[in-house]
């Protein structure tokens, strides 16, 4: 029925690869990004542990990484990737640049979400004699939770886009199919099915994010 050279197994494997790349880099990127986000909220001028030197340094580093488009970032850190992953091609190798790409992005999103929590909440926490860790854990994070979920949905969608580019350098995943079969072999079916899968992914993640955020927000 379709004039295509990819098999269903290949396609399912590609979807699995995409999910693996996105999942792994999201997990690790979220851990690093959240910590980074919390640190820049704390150390900013007027923050709970104001430390302008730390803040400006991290701020500049985040901006630098975020200035580099993912495809350029990916090829420019190949030697580093080889050290970390032991190889510079394949799914595992793609995760390294994906983490470096998404960590500062998540840090910024986390920063924004945390800053949305009013200074009044922090003031109330301080008036109760809460420690800085208690302020973040018992006050800021719970209040920012809904917003953080939406931020993560945004980050995940960004990662799916980036992971498709990883396909271009042999990272596997649905992006790989689209480029290898769709672009180089004029296989329209490969491209269209890739697009459909991506649309479904993004729709699902955004709706799930909205739904969860509404659940925890209670406002």
């Amino acid at each position, binding site marked *: 029925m379709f004039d295509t050279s990819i098999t269903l197994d290949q396609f399912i494997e590609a979807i699995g690869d995409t999910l693996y790349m996105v999942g792994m880099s999201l997990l690790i990127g979220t851990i690093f990004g959240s910590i980074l986000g919390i640190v820049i909220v704390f150390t900013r001028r007027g923050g709970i542990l104001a430390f302008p030197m730390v803040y400006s340094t991290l701020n500049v580093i985040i901006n630098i990484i975020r200035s580099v488009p993912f495809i350029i970032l990916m090829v420019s850190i190949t030697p580093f990737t080889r050290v970390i992953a032991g190889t510079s091609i394949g799914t595992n190798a793609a995760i390294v640049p994906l983490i470096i790409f998404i960590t500062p992005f998540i840090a910024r999103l986390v920063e924004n979400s945390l800053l949305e929590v*009013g200074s*009044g*909440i922090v*003031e*109330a926490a*301080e*008036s*109760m*004699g*809460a*420690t800085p860790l*208690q302020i973040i854990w*018992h*006050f800021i994070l*719970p*209040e920012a*939770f*809904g917003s953080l979920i939406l931020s993560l949905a945004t980050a995940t969608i960004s990662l799916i886009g980036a992971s498709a580019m990883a396909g271009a350098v042999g990272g596997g995943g649905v992006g790989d199919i689209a480029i290898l079969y769709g672009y180089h072999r004029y296989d329209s079916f490969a491209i269209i099915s890739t697009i459909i899968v991506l649309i479904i992914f993004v729709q699902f993640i955004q709706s799930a994010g909205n739904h969860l955020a509404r659940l*925890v*927000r*209670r*406002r």
Partner: protein
Amino acid sequence: MIELKGIHKVYQKKNTEVQALKGVDLSIDKGDIFGVIGYSGAGKSTLVRLVNYLERPSQGQVIVDGAYLGNQSPHALRQIKKQIGMIFQHFNLLESKTIFKNVAMPLILAKKSKQEIRSRVLELLQFVGLEDKASNYPSELSGGQKQRVGIARALASNPKILLCDEATSALDPQTTQSILSLLQRVNKKYGITIMIITHEMSVIQKICNKVAVMEEGRVIEEGSVLDVFGHPEHETSHKFVQTVMNTDIPSRIKEQLRQQGTHSLTKLEMVGEHATQPILSTLIQRFDLKVSAVFTNMIDIQNTTLAIWYLDIQGDTRNKERALSYLKQNDVLVKEVTV
């Protein structure tokens, strides 16, 4: 209980310095309900934040319950803060947590046991009249109910002091009254010293026993509420008193008096039971004077009546002098005023 000595507070804003407080001395005794009133920008919000060191003074000393806050370690300072509850104009409740959890927060921070937290929170919710709202969220409550939650939360750690930063400014007059009554109960039942920041003189009138009037970073007048209401010395204090009690003779009446040839009146100020003495009949019958009350005003300040009367007293000069000294002996403050 609270002592502020020579407090200066300067904010650095870009290249300019803003002097929020310019040498404030204030002393609040245990059990006081102390009101601080002033227009916005007078420095009163900064002042209240010094008491629990949310703001640090640029110069001067803050002493709370005998402890000088300036040389405390961060840990010791946090322990002191647990002795000082605070409520806010916009309540500052955690929207993501139930009313129960909100009130429990200070106890969770202090790592109290589950049972202890439960019994204390339920006791407090009952005290503020919200025992049926334990599992609701703040967004489901009215403004007055939210402030009740704020009060319950502030009381959770058994503080000695309660700071109220414009606690009723976001509430309607009726809700304000009920919150003020609740604060009065807090003061009576738990013996908690309360410091109230407000721009509404009616709040001072309703529950405070002492008041400080602030303007441009300074305390311009301080004293018992009855004294300040009776004879405010500063223009700004006078204006605040006028917002709840009109003690000035209206200009229309003044005009009429001048036309009648009356140029001076006798102002009487009476407090408490003296305010309800049969003054007029005594003056008329005993001293044979012709007395007319030109303008009178009575106000209730914490269950004490303050009465201010402007009388036009005509008659024999000697009789009038005897009458005035009789009034003075009866604790009536007498003053001749020109129209």
